[in-house]
């Protein structure tokens, strides 16, 4: 059972690291421990991916874990981004600590919860049990709630409260949906734990009762959709993503949204199998379009830099949701790719944004200026990140949007004007602000920072590489995943 061992390391490392960091979180070497833990997790993730690549999808831990092409790539992505975020958080949090924005307990809490959060996300991805999926999702929420309010400012607390309540309510709906799913599954698979295993469910999905499943889907949609940040369930997202420490914003925007979308897609597969209709897809498309439009128009009037990119996350999740809803191989391929590149690009942006706002000691975009001259690597990283995120080639986001848009043109041409409008407005909105921040002379209140350049450059390099060349193994993965989802 070598697979189980890899899995165990993958899940155990962050948990163990969380426990250690809860005690040593404010020591001088804590960031290094954090990085080491995440790196070990990443290594284990790679190992697992390698196994899956060799053998195909597999069950482990007494059917408790299920690894296939769909979730293993997200697991590798999650562990990778969390590793780079840990690298980024080293200078960032150190400076926050020096400036007294975070105290001793805050640091310990921060480090421990960071690792716990990673654990929750990985559990979410790897578990085979839909009930456990829900639990892990809730755990992921809970572990980050207090991180959002880490600075204890009124707005931070407000944001965290909204995050807590709205996601709590949302996720409760998802539990109701899960109960309904279980109810339907029980009639086919019999009682007991087997009925919640996704592997079993997917085999018999066409025997499940369609009416119940469509009811269940509504609740799952609202539940996980809240976590994905789909309009009109999104209201917590800009607050929570902008008020917390930037490393947390990076992982929230870059990873947690993906995980929620993953859960939603898993459920959609079952529902589609049962209902043989396109209802679920239509609902997802509706949410997607609405999210894209509302988010892009909201982008136009942002003043806070992190808030702006939170709205951009909503927009991109809308695109991915829309694409999954659209279905079909090209769109699904595009959606998977989009999740990957958005996650990388968005977290890279948050890294640079973190440094930029530290340099100017504000998150107000009107006061951030002259990044090109002040710190060229941050400035150009930010610029290229923004270019990537708005879908400029040759970055990978363009490739995925290319696939999604062309597929839309074919399958749902009436949607393209809306999609086009949303993308156009988002492009203009983001570029309008970004170029005033990067260009021009250095303002006198700008102070230099020790920036972590490696994570940004690594992310952007990967996004660029994907835009130009998609390696075979990634492609095969995506194709396998597409087969699974289709």
């Amino acid at each position, binding site marked *: 059972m070598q697979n189980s061992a890899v899995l165990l390391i993958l899940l155990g490392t962050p948990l163990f690291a969380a426990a250690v960091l809860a005690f040593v979180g404010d020591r001088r070497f804590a960031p290094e421990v954090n990085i080491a833990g995440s790196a070990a997790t990443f290594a284990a993730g790679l190992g697992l991916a390698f196994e899956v690549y060799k053998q195909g999808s597999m069950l482990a831990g007494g059917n408790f874990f299920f690894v296939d092409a769909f979730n293993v790539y997200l697991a590798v992505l999650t562990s990778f981004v969390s590793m780079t975020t840990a690298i980024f958080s080293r200078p960032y949090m150190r400076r926050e600590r020096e400036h007294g924005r975070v105290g001793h307990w805050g640091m310990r809490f921060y480090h421990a919860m960071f690792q716990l959060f990673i654990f929750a996300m990985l559990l979410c991805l790897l578990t085979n049990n839909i009930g456990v999926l829900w639990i892990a999702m809730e755990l992921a929420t809970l572990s980050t709630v207090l991180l959002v309010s880490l600075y204890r400012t009124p707005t931070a607390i407000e944001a965290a409260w909204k995050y807590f309540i709205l996601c709590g309510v949302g996720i409760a709906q998802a539990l109701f949906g899960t109960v309904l799913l279980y109810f339907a599954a029980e009639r086919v698979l019999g009682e007991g734990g087997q009925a919640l295993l996704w592997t079993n469910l997917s085999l018999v999905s066409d025997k499940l009762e369609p009416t119940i499943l469509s*009811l269940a889907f509504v609740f799952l949609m609202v539940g996980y959709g809240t976590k994905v940040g789909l309009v*009109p369930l999104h209201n917590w997202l800009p607050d929570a993503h902008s008020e917390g420490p930037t490393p947390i914003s990076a992982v929230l925007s870059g990873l947690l949204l993906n995980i929620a979308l993953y859960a939603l897609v898993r459920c959609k597969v079952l529902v589609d199998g049962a209902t043989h209709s396109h209802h679920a897809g239509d609902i997802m498309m509706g949410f997607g379009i609405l999210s894209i439009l509302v988010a892009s*128009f*909201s982008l136009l009037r942002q003043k806070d830099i992190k808030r702006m990119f939170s709205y951009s996350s909503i927009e991109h999740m809308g695109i991915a949701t829309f694409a999954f809803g659209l279905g079909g191989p090209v769109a699904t391929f595009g959606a998977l790719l989009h999740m990957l590149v958005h996650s990388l690009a968005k977290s890279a942006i948050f890294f640079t944004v973190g440094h930029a706002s530290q340099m100017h000691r504000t998150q107000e975009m009107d006061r951030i200026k002259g990044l090109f001259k002040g710190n060229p690597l941050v400035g150009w990283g930010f610029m290229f990140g923004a270019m990537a995120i708005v879908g400029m*080639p040759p970055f990978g986001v363009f490739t995925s949007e290319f696939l999604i848009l062309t597929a839309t043109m074919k399958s749902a041409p009436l949607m393209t004007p809306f999609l086009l409008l949303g993308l156009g407005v988002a492009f*203009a909105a983001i570029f309008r602000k970004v*170029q005033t921040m990067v*260009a021009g002379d250095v303002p006198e209140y700008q102070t230099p920072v020790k920036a972590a350049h490696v994570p940004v450059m690594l992310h952007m390099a990967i996004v660029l590489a994907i835009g130009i060349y998609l390696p075979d193994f990634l492609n095969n993965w995506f194709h396998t995943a597409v087969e699974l989802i289709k």
Partner: protein
Amino acid sequence: MIQLTLTPLNLASFAIILLLAQTAIASILRKNERLMVPVCFALSSAASFAATAAGVWTVGLGSSSSAVMALGLPGLPFHLRLDPLSGYFLGLIGLLSFFVSIYSIGYVKGFIGHRPIARLCIFYGLFIAGMFMVVLADDALFFLISWETMAAASYFLVMFEDERVENRRAAFLYIVVAHVGAVAILLAFGVMAGLATGFDNFSGFTFDAMRQADFPPEWATVAFLLAFFGFGAKAGIVPMHVWLPEAHPVAPSNVSALMSGVMLKTAVYGILRVTFDLIKIIPWWWGALVLALGIISALMGILYAMMEKDLKRLLAYSSVENIGIIMIGVGMAMVFKSFGQGIFAALALIAALYHAVNHAMFKGLLFMGAGAVLHATHERNMEEMGGLIHKMPWTAALFLIGCVSISALPPFNGFVSEWLTFQAFLLSPALPSPLMKLLMPLGAALLALTAALAAACFVKAFGVTFLGNWRGRHRTQVQETCWPIRIAMGMAATSCLLLGILPTVFIDWMDVIAEQLTGGKLATSAGAVGWMWLTPIAPERASYSGLVVFSGILAVYAIVYIILHVNPGKIRRGHVWDCGFEKLTNRMQYNAISFSMPIRRIFGFLFNIKEEVRLVPQQAHSAFPQKLIYSLRIRDRFWNWIYKPVADASFWLSRRVGRLQQGRINTYLIYSFVTIILLLLFVR
């Protein structure tokens, strides 16, 4: 895969690799700018030369070659293809890039010490590489990647002097329009790819698949309109042109030359590629649309240019005009092709292609000249210039050649293409559609108006900038430019002349493109009376010989000069006639605003003009004002008609949408609640 033999495609790929190497070298050498500038621009001129050679060679061969790169999506690797059409544009882009790269060696040196220029070198290389890749791309994905690389690189070049607000504003406007256009192009390809093979795999995205597909007319129309919108936005066709006079002037002049001279041509290439090569079956009204917009662009472009007093903005608006003229040719080719008149379509197409290369040459030349002037005087406003012909004789002479060429005066190149366009117009009786028959000659009249206005416009541009006396308040030290700049401009001017006097040779060479795209062939009739005379359809129909005109004028000049100088009278210098009023100052000369006044009066209704004359009264005698303050502001009406409403509507909507997020958690909970209820009702 690419074998290491010398083929046009390999040569072109080599050029691209060289340019990428340039960007790498620029980033390595960024600390040593004195070394970086010559090295980088020498590399890019070598690359451009290679690309030109590849292009010329391909068109000469008349065949196409293709390759597949191991990059891209696995189901959709990057396809490259070099056929005569792309070869033609490759040559065109390469040629001007070659000149401009040489020019840049001298020009960019002027920035050293003022600002870091590594950025300029890096994006300059990427920009040219992007343009090369656009014409080489043979699948939708690679095309768009190249397209946007080109746009992004030029965006950064426009932003080069980024501390100025106008540069940032212009760059922003540019990139937004470019991106929206790119998305439209993307959708057009999406339509075609979907119809070509469906979306079960990626093979439909290759141009080959699209070429072989038959599109239902309504979808073909959708694809065409999207593509035309997208490419038109890039080309600066009215009313999508507003970004162009903003972005082109604020870029460094070598970049302006490339943007106006060749980047706009990539859009022309795109339109030709999509309509003639990919869709192939063209309804006549597409052509009519392109033709109509081309005419409007030509006329509006030159009228706006006429009104400008900023030399580079004037040139940018004139690019709108010239793109309009190219579009007129393209539109006519489409009309003729849709009615199956291959040879006439070939004539119109060749006129368009010819004008494309001509415009590249003279607009590149003019922008280089404007750059040289800017370099010397630090001034873009013509009102502050004058008399530069004495200080910068070389620049003036070369700029004059550009002005004569762009004003479509024989024996230079601009005239040849306009003449061919007129000839195509006069073929309209052959059309079966009575409407087109009637409307096309009217288009010819408007084109004639455009040409005449262009002459007026460039008399103004040259006259105000180089002639007369210095108008500026401050007398700055003006010097002739350095040799690389002069050499580059000289080469461009020479090409203007050669293209003007040897059209048959040139048409003979490029005829294969017209043959492949329209089915008609011109070379046999065009050179019917010999290489010296251009006879596009038949000698008795129309003929022109630039060489004879050129040598005729020269001969008469020489003879008269010699006769008169057998016993020449003396030449004395004297004061000019001042009506007896003795305080003639340099500020009393006609300037750009006063020069264009009569035309402003006539065509005033097309502009948004705010003219204001303010009297500052003298204390003692109110009847004799102390001074007059005159201010004139001319705005593009399209700005208020199209762009401003869009922006306003977006912000209005944005405010509305903002109300969703009003801060109270209870409201947010209501959203969730209502969403659940609605969805439940939906699934029941």
